[in-house]
């Protein structure tokens, strides 16, 4: 019972964080058709900007300013980088974002140093929210859950219920038509790219102090974000949401399970003494998302909710 409750709580909070990060990526993909390899770098920028702003003012100011700054950086990258590269096709775009990821990492290393910075949870939220089964659940994680849900609702409202959202959706599928109707399509693209990056920045701001803020955080987070986007179905926000929660739960439950392969497959004669039998489920936890990715690509290439195949 304890395992289930803890698994759910941690899984959902981690999953929502993943969603914050991957929603921007999937939004950008459905708009421009390019997988932004530098997306996790914007996540890292969010954490570092928040660290700097928190240091000179307060976390609450950083909460608003840091994502906006990351969004602006994203918009500049789109306006003066991606848009120019776009003329040369998707491969050029892919390589551009790939290079950009390295560039951002090196710049961060030069400015902030190669090791982790001391970015902390704000004192106001640094207390235990409630206690179950002898363990407390930190208030900050509840705050993260709320921000993620607010962001999810806000994004949904923007895209589905406002005029701006209608134009964005139209621009995704019929850019020429929207252009002929008198809307500034390149501007729309730049805005969406900026918003996508700002969301990644927000995720960095929220996660940087729970985990570690160091120059390796982008590289560590990068692969898992792609897993979320592919499993959810490329370009689908709903899919990204489902996949994030699924992966969050999967990883947390796996760690909590004590069984080994021998326990699971004992009926075919596997014993604790053998190499394979002694592998525990919990030690496999970090691999599971990637196993899911491989299986998904084999059996359902369009992902959970996606419309198009890779």
């Amino acid at each position: 019972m304890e395992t289930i409750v803890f698994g759910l709580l941690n899984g959902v909070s981690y999953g929502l964080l993943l969603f914050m990060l991957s929603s921007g990526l999937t939004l950008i993909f459905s708009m421009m058709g390019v997988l932004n390899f530098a997306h996790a770098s914007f996540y890292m920028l969010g954490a570092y900007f928040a660290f700097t702003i928190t240091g000179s003012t307060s976390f609450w100011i950083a909460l608003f300013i840091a994502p906006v700054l990351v969004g602006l950086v994203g918009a500049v990258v789109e306006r003066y980088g991606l848009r120019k590269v776009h003329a040369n096709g998707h491969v050029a775009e892919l390589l551009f974002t790939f290079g950009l990821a390295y560039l951002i990492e090196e710049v961060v290393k030069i400015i902030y140093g190669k090791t982790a910075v001391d970015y902390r949870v704000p004192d106001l939220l640094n207390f235990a929210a409630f206690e179950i089964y002898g363990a407390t659940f930190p208030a900050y994680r509840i705050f993260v859950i709320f921000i993620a849900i607010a962001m999810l609702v806000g994004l949904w409202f923007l895209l589905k219920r406002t005029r701006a959202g209608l134009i964005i959706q139209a621009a995704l599928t019929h850019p020429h038509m929207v252009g002929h109707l008198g809307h500034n399509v390149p501007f729309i693209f730049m805005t969406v790219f900026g918003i996508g990056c700002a969301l990644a920045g927000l995720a960095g701001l929220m996660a940087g102090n729970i985990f570690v803020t160091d120059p390796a955080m982008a590289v560590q987070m990068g692969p898992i974000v792609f897993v979320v986007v592919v499993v959810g179905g490329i370009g689908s926000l709903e899919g990204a949401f489902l996949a994030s929660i699924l992966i969050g739960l999967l990883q947390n439950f796996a760690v909590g399970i004590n069984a080994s392969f021998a326990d699971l497959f004992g009926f075919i004669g596997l014993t604790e003494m053998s190499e394979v039998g002694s592998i525990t489920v919990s030690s496999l936890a970090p691999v599971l998302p990637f196993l899911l990715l491989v299986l998904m690509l084999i059996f359902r290439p369009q992902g959970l909710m996606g419309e198009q195949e890779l």
Partner: protein
Amino acid sequence: MTFRKTAILAAATSVLAMGAANADTIKMAFIDPLSGPMGPSGEAAYTSFQLAAEHINEAGGVNGDMIEVTGYDNKVNPKESLVQLQKAIDDGARYIFQGNGSSVAAALIDAIDKHNSRNPGEEVVFFNYAAVTPAFTNELCSFWHFRFDAHADMKMAAITDWIAEHDEIKSVYLIGQDYVFGEAVVAAAESMLTEKRPDIEIVGNELHPLAKVKDFTPYIQKIISSGADAVITGNWGADMQLLMKAAAESGSDIPYLTFYGGSKGAVSSLGEGAIDRLYQVTEGITNLDASDEQYALIEEYKERFPDYDYYYHRAFNAMNMFVAAAEAAGSADPIPVAKALEGLSIEHAYGTATMRAEDHQIQQPLFISTVSNDVKYGVDNIELGWTLVDAGTIPLEAAEQPTTCEMERPE
């Protein structure tokens, strides 16, 4: 005319440069993580070696020669370490320092053995200051390897002796990093606990990936629901800090018996919760009674490197033992120094350290300490710091462990 002038000048400078190269710099290479999640662990040790070298140079050097320590970033990766080792050897380094990661140390021991047998006259010696898998001074021992830190069995003996004295501990949870060192810690804990306190139940035995886990909350919650009275861990670097971060968030008060509770950020992650709850075994802590010189050294280190604390006392021990050996041998060449190091003793701030000749394992008193808010020196830039526990001094004889090493020595 101009050409001839230039040629003469060039010849002159090259002679000068050659002279400078012989003017006697002892090159030492520090191969450890200087970036990434384990970067702070490497950085803290690197700065300690550099400060030690500076002090030695100011005091006239080693037989008049100057020591130069250069850092090589290996990203805790054994393969990358071999590349860096080759680079270091090409740069002229004859002494290698490494400590973060027994996986790396194992690769270096092997590579250095091979290098030395293939390049007689250009031998390289490995000073291991923190990779503590017992095998390196037992079945895998090598003449070219010297260890300046107590190995896992020695530290575990200290921890299990402490547990044996505490009857209220009835169950123990083991958690470690999933590689050769983490496995050695878990194995040592199991065998020693069964021997010293057969009544203790080991309620958990968990290995997690090295330097990959960012959120230890699920592990901590597993520990809590196992009902353990104490946790033993060999985690170091970011894995130690993040484990403590998750422990602090969970609000449980289980004591943590660690090898590397002194890793940067571990104490500040727990805050007040670390008091009488986080324990470590080391060769010294800053809050032990010591000479004024030692206090001055601790303060100088903090002033020079405010991000870190004086933690790698063994870095200074290793350097001072090197100097003593080189002076005894009258040479800074690897083979004479290595031979002089065997059986060498020095007095350091917290006791006597002897390099056991049989297996090249340092023998010295160990100290069990916990966190307190009433200390001379805090860590992590907060008020809390390490203080000796009652009967926390483990004398040399008690800390010593037997060895199975059968060493082959060069002629």
